[in-house]
């Protein structure tokens, strides 16, 4: 266990350093992307551009610029190029919306996926199974921003059942928060409900043909008890692993499209705007934050998996 934590921590640090370098280089490679010219604005003289280039350190070699940016990231002083505001403050501002979206949607897709998967498996081959399969396939095949936009059009604009996007902090008004989050939650979880119900359905059907299920039947247990006590416990373990990874991916930037279409002003939307403005510092910090979350949660997932299933060994 201790060995596992040490190994994973080292590889996490290595991956994060590599990711920060790659992100930095992606934007550094842009021609005509001189950040000094953008900081100076449209009506700038060459002198101001040169002065800005010097004070911000853009005239230094690229590895010095990288080290300077990383130093600012870790001392919390990293400033965006376009609006010249503290990036970490901006991220802190967006974090509640992103976490509300990810956690709520994560809970919905986990339980709805398990529920629909079990129902489909219990009715395998029947009409319910076919209908659920069809719904799942449509969920998997619809882009989240299209689904979100259509939800906004029909449920918010036409029927006025829901608000037209935007985010209300949980701390200021819990009722409004819930009211504003329902559509984004549903839009984001549709894809995952489709995937999870399909995976769980096939897991349940596979487990049904195992020897211990035959033993349980031979003992005279009811089908319901076999399904919930024996089969489901085994089938849900891979779902837990999937959930850890998918949840991490959603927090780490996977919710960009949902945040943008519902205008939630979360971290993802901030990243999308910064990328559009070629603003390196926010993108760098958000990408690092996102990949850190992906790597961290995948390690946590491995530990939880080993705990749930003693057959799994931590390496």
């Amino acid at each position, binding site marked *: 266990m201790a060995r596992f934590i040490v190994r994973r921590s080292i590889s996490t640090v290595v991956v994060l350093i590599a990711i920060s370098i790659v992100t930095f280089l*992606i934007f550094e490679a842009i021609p005509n992307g001189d950040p000094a010219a953008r900081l100076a604005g449209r009506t700038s003289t060459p002198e101001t551009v040169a002065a800005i280039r010097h004070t911000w350190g853009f005239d230094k070699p690229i590895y010095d610029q990288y080290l300077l940016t990383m130093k600012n990231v870790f001392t919390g002083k990293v400033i965006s190029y376009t609006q010249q505001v503290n990036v970490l403050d901006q991220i802190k501002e967006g974090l509640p919306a992103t976490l509300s979206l990810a956690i709520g949607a994560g809970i919905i897709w986990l339980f709805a996926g398990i529920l629909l998967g079990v129902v489909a498996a219990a009715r395998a081959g029947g009409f319910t199974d076919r209908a659920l399969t069809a719904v799942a396939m449509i969920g998997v095949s619809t882009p989240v921003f299209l689904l979100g936009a259509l939800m906004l059009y029909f449920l918010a604009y036409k029927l006025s059942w829901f608000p037209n996007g935007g985010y209300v902090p949980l701390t200021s008004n819990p009722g409004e928060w819930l009211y504003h989050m329902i559509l984004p939650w549903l839009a984001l979880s549709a894809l995952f409900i489709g995937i999870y119900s399909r995976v769980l359905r096939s897991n349940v059907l596979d487990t049904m043909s195992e020897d211990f299920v035959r033993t349980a039947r031979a003992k005279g247990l009811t089908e319901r008890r076999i399904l919930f006590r024996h089969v489901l416990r085994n089938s849900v373990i891979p779902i837990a692993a999937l959930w850890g990874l998918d949840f991490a991916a959603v927090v780490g930037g996977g919710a960009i499209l949902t945040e943008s279409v519902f205008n939630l002003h979360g971290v993802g939307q901030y990243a999308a705007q910064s990328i559009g403005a070629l603003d390196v510092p926010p993108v760098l910090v*958000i990408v690092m934050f996102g990949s850190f979350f992906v790597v961290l949660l995948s390690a946590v997932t491995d530990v939880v998996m080993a705990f749930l299933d003693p057959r799994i060994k931590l390496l």
Partner: protein
Amino acid sequence: MSTELLPQLARRPASPQDSPRPVAGAGPYTLAFRRLRRDRVSLAFGAVFLVITAMCLAAPLYAHHIAHTGPADNHVTDTVRIGGQTRDVVSPDGLPIGPTWHGRFFLGADQNGRDIAVRLLYGGRNSLEIGFVATAITMILATLTGGVAGYFRGPVDSVLARVLDLIWAFPVVLLGIALGTSLALGGINLGLFTLSGNSLLVPAVIIGFVYIPYVAKPVRGQVLALREREFVDAARLQGLGTLRILWSEVLPNLASTLIVFVPLMIANAILLEAGLSYLGAGVQPPNPSWGTMIADGIALLPSAIHLTLVPGAMLVLAVLGINVFGDGVRDALDPHSPIRLGH
């Protein structure tokens, strides 16, 4: 003893005495093909995808002979005659015309007065082309990296596995839009390999690249197991070279895994292209794609829903077609295969 108690007895393969004459053996692919042929639903959805592909390939025919306009031609100030009435293509307050169900503007126009049906077909060509090219890139590079890492193990594997981990830990959409924005401005220039920023290949290369780990990791796992098998030892003892072993002993055993990934990858590539285009980091205007058309439509949403619905329906139909067909192919090749793709 009744066979009902022991169902495996009832299903036991026919012994030579049972059948009067020898039955021709069928290979695994023949059997898979037979199973797929019985799967009517999958075939029907596969046909939907093929029909959409064929329609998009025929886009120039439709543009020249039926609509008489190109995908980038503006008709903001034009009028059309429908049922004896003359109507503006784009009304004075900027609202585009809806579906006319006539040759011109069959599915309506967008805010620039461009024919939606024509753009839909040309956009489909671009979306599908990106889907196919990105899938080809992913499959080739993932098979190479996964195969080499799994076969050679040791330091080669460590290095390649770290690189794959790196791409995998990078949030897919973030990496996609970062690369997309950066390349749309600058293009790629790697000596012999040059791409200009507005080329369709830019999103295709990006999408192909970000999905490599999702295919390479399972390939690596399979190769790790395959290289320990007796037939690989036998080939090595026969004196076959490494390349020969990889090509004729290992690759054929990977084929069914790779085949299962292809439709999944095409579907995911088309969806990611749409997402990137929605964020402005995919196909660059005025080049249409389903993603850019949906994005344009959403920007005008409450007033002209057909701008969102038409390309949206087409995209969902195409992706649904290839997804259901891919499911059928997977079931036919291996009914118990656990393969699935992330997002």
